[in-house]
């Protein structure tokens, strides 16, 4: 798949949501500003390989600590330059995101084709189990609100944003039972971003259902898709996904447009009237955000159930910071809930 961001390659490489994917950058010049530890979104890159048009080994930036090449080599990630990424993007746009394989040996294309066909398809694959934390850990020691974050592949900048609005975070693995989470006595629950098909983790949806209404809850991207499913809405695969830092999203209550950061291949269906009639849970569910490019669902709120979620990435990193107010909104929701 491709990403249209013109900056932020390092954040994208290390975002666990990109697990299992071969990433092509549409912006042709990559590597210009090197890499720096601070910009990592997790401890290691999660992409399978990086494709760029022109790689620049001579970086120029005062924060840079190493070149992108050194970084990828260190983490044993394949990077290929000299690719006509524009042609590749056009192909993906017309044919859709697809399974792919990279090899230096092109003697037998049939063999490679056979190999890639035997790789499990994205739809139905649970990639969360590869990137979720193995053990519970804490992030931030002080903070007015204790947030339990269910880790489907959480980005560091999300944890940083939560602490910035006064949260102390306990991060738990994706398969943690609702009863275990309740024992942690949280003020709020956070559902993180993550990779792959949200329909492949029914175990998480089931636990979230049990927590809904009991605690203020906030979901981002994959977390939004989990919450949507907990309300009984279906998810579906987009043709080539939304990946970039320039998607206009309308905040319906304020009538204001936010330039949002997107990284998702799946989407939650819009709660239409026929669906709502058969599903009592959907009463009270409001659409808060909508994507202006293709009118897909971007945000939900359910005031009685005390939960809201967005499909885009308010933490940005990389991308515009227009939607960062949502973290404050979560803190306020927890404050209000405490009474």
């Amino acid at each position: 798949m491709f990403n249209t961001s013109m900056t932020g390659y390092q954040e994208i490489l290390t975002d666990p949501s990109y697990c299992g994917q071969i990433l092509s950058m549409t912006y042709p010049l990559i590597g210009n500003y090197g890499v720096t530890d601070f910009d990592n979104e997790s401890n290691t890159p999660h992409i399978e390989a990086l494709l760029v048009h022109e790689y620049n080994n001579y970086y120029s930036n005062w924060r840079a600590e190493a070149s992108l090449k050194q970084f990828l080599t260190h983490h044993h990630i394949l990077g290929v330059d000299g690719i006509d990424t524009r042609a590749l993007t056009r192909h993906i746009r017309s044919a859709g995101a697809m399974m792919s394989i990279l090899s230096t040996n092109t003697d037998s294309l049939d063999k490679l084709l056979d190999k890639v066909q035997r790789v499990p398809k994205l739809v139905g694959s649970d990639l969360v189990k590869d990137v979720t934390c193995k053990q519970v850990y804490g992030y931030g020691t002080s903070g007015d609100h204790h947030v339990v974050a269910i880790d489907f592949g959480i980005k560091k900048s999300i944890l940083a944003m939560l602490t910035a609005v006064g949260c102390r975070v306990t991060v738990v693995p994706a398969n943690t039972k609702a009863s275990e989470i309740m024992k942690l006595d949280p003020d709020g629950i956070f559902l993180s971003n993550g990779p792959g098909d949200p329909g492949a983790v029914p175990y998480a949806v089931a636990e979230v259902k049990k927590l809904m209404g009991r605690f203020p809850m906030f979901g981002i991207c994959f977390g939004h898709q989990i919450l949507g499913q907990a309300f009984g809405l279906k998810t579906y695969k987009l043709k080539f996904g939304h990946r970039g830092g320039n998607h206009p999203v309308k905040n319906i209550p304020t009538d204001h447009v936010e330039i949002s950061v997107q990284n998702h291949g799946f989407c939650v269906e819009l709660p239409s009237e026929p669906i709502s009639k058969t599903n009592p849970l959907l009463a009270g569910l409001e659409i808060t955000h909508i994507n202006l490019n293709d009118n897909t669902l971007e945000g939900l709120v359910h005031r009685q159930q005390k939960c809201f979620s967005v499909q885009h990435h308010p933490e940005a990193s990389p991308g515009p910071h227009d939607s960062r107010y949502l973290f404050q909104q979560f803190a306020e929701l927890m404050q209000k809930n405490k009474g």
Partner: protein
Amino acid sequence: MPKRLDLKKILIIGSGPIIIGQACEFDYSGSQACKTLREEGYQVVLINSNPATIMTDPDMADKTYIEPIETDIIAQIIAKERPDALLPTLGGQTGLNAACALYKQGVLAKYNVELIGASYEAIQKTEDRMLFKEIMECIGVGVLASAHVSSIEAAEEFANKTGFPIIIRPSFTLGGAGGGVAYNLDELREITYNGLIQSPSSQVLIEESVIGWKEYELEVMRDIADNVVIVCSMENVDPMGVHTGDSITVAPIQTLSDLEYQEMRNEALKIIREIGVETGGSNIQFAVNPETGKRVVVEMNPRVSRSSALASKATGFAIAKIAAKLAVGYTLDELPNDITSKTPACFEPAIDYCVTKVPRWDFEKFSDADVRLTTQMKSVGEVMAIGRTFKESLQKALRSLEQGRFGWGADGHDHYCYDQLTQADAADVYKKEITHYLSTYCREDFLYSICAINRHVN
């Protein structure tokens, strides 16, 4: 919001003669505005002293006055035409100045003409350097450190805090006599001493210098509903100290990581909101210290500028056209994106190519001119080229200058003026043969020390 129906007739002030520093880009933006407003059903009255422009062609406006752009003449036209509004932001600095003068003289109030696009207050906030600085400090945006001092000791104290170089400007002297740039303590003492003697108020303004810092520009659009987008980001190959109009400029920004770019974007949003440019485009310039990353805002133009013309062509986002529509009440999300026609104009163009602008000088026609490039623009035109790599777009631009050359290192006519090369010495763009010097001499540190053009670190 739909377009305003209370406006019927709109006055546009053109940019007058084409001069060095203000070229035909304002004819382009003005013509776009005329066309757009007429399409929307408004009557357009145009005044421009320059008949050799596209905007003064028949059919561009409902009424065209080819008259000097002077306040008393515009006042007479206003008295005769009685427009409902004046759109001052599309005729360059000339149009903006004329609109401000009309406002100050009470002409606009007398005939009940509304300034649309940018208010008088917003324009003043950007024109008055001290006021602009104060506002920036209030909203926490970095500006250059500066101080009025009346003794050498105070100047030394200032230097201890900010470091060198420092610019010294005596207060109230004509043409900045007695000022200068100090690179060390001795120079600071000497220049401050001279400045204090020459200044009638025995005071000098000393300011941190950003000569050699990286120079960036953002093109920002805002609508009446407070939606803001960055249309294009640009980085100058030539650092601060060389006028943007004389700089080789690249879009998008090449050497800022996402975090640094987003912080700059956040500041640009804050600035346009605080200054209060209600609708339309603005250009905001930043300087960034290449060693420490310290960032300051240098200036803001609350109007369509030379860079807007470049940004429009570089991204396909028709800034002048959309600015005209925003001025009459549309919002960005109501207007279609010209390229996709399916999605709204409320977005930030993501391009998959690199754009390079190269200025063209004609010093051979001005034999007395000082060929060194400084803070005053000297180029007479520019070319822009698009490429999938920086090298491609730069070489295409150099070829397009029509100086009979085919790009750096590409035609065997490169010449070596190694000894004379300075930051200021770029009368001939081919003297900037940095890559060639690098491969020939590998004296990168030396080159950097004199021109401060970005270098690689590893």
